[in-house]
């Protein structure tokens, strides 16, 4: 390496050093603007999962379903309790000469015998 080249390298290093010692500096106003950007771009809170929208009259359908189910169950128990022969021999239900009256399910009311006369 020649003396001339070394000298040029040293001089170039001085230019680079001058550049490092005198960096262009951002103004305070610009830094303040950047600072404001932090708040404006801060990550948002994670959104909570939205509940599934209920359909119109959904509440009515749910009540109806509950009442129907429990009502049917209660009716089934009631029938089984009062007319166990219907459960032990289901063919009675299908026999052509079998009639089942509403009164069969009401033990306190023997309507067929009263003929309109009040019970004693």
């Amino acid at each position, binding site marked *: 390496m020649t003396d001339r080249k070394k000298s040029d390298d040293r*001089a*170039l290093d001085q230019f*680079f050093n*001058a550049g490092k010692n005198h*960096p262009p*500096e951002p103004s305070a106003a610009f830094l303040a603007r950047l600072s404001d950007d*932090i708040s404006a771009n*801060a*990550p948002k809170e994670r959104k909570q999962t939205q509940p599934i929208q209920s359909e119109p009259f959904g509440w009515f359908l749910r009540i109806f379903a509950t009442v129907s189910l429990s009502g049917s169950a209660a009716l089934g128990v009631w029938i089984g309790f009062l007319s166990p022969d219907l459960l032990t021999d289901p063919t009675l239900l299908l026999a052509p000469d079998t009639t089942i009256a509403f009164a069969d399910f009401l033990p306190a009311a023997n309507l067929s015998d009263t003929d309109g006369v009040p019970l004693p």
Partner: protein
Amino acid sequence: MQNQRKTRATPTEAPDEALLVAFANGDNEAAQILLHRLAPRLYAYAVRVLNDRAEAEDVVQETLIRLWKIAPDWRQGEARVFTWVYKVAANLCTDRLRKMRPQVEIGNIAAPADTIADVVALLTETQRSKALQSALDSLPDRQRQATVLRHIDELSNPEIAAIMDLSVEAVESLTARGKRALKTSLMGRKKELGYTDD
């Protein structure tokens, strides 16, 4: 209300990546530390490459906004924040250079000085700094970017390669050519700027 989600004091010596994750978790103070760590360097880099302070401000602002937005998705260990922001800034500078060319006006780079003695002491070096800027501006864009990153920002060749999407060999070639071109440009003004060959 999210500005009030500061959780605890963030240590100023924390790594960039930890500060970014803290910001993603609601700690705005961490982002402030990161801002004051990164912005001056990015700004100096952008001014040297673009030779335009307003454009440099835009580049830095855009770069940092992108950083804040990506914070919640930042995956630690995959990249360094420092390299990432330089890469974004370098790309934004390249985009602007394509639109700005040709331009030859030299920016006015003021040096802070408090006293007459300081002004006298700084005068030659300020001139050097301006001359350097002028010479840098004469380099092709990629050469200028690589030269600034290597010789002023003092990044390693692998870091520059990552920032500029080049091979290390390509970076070495760019910086060597840049240095030669700077010498040619500056040596003619050597004595004018107060240098001697001793």
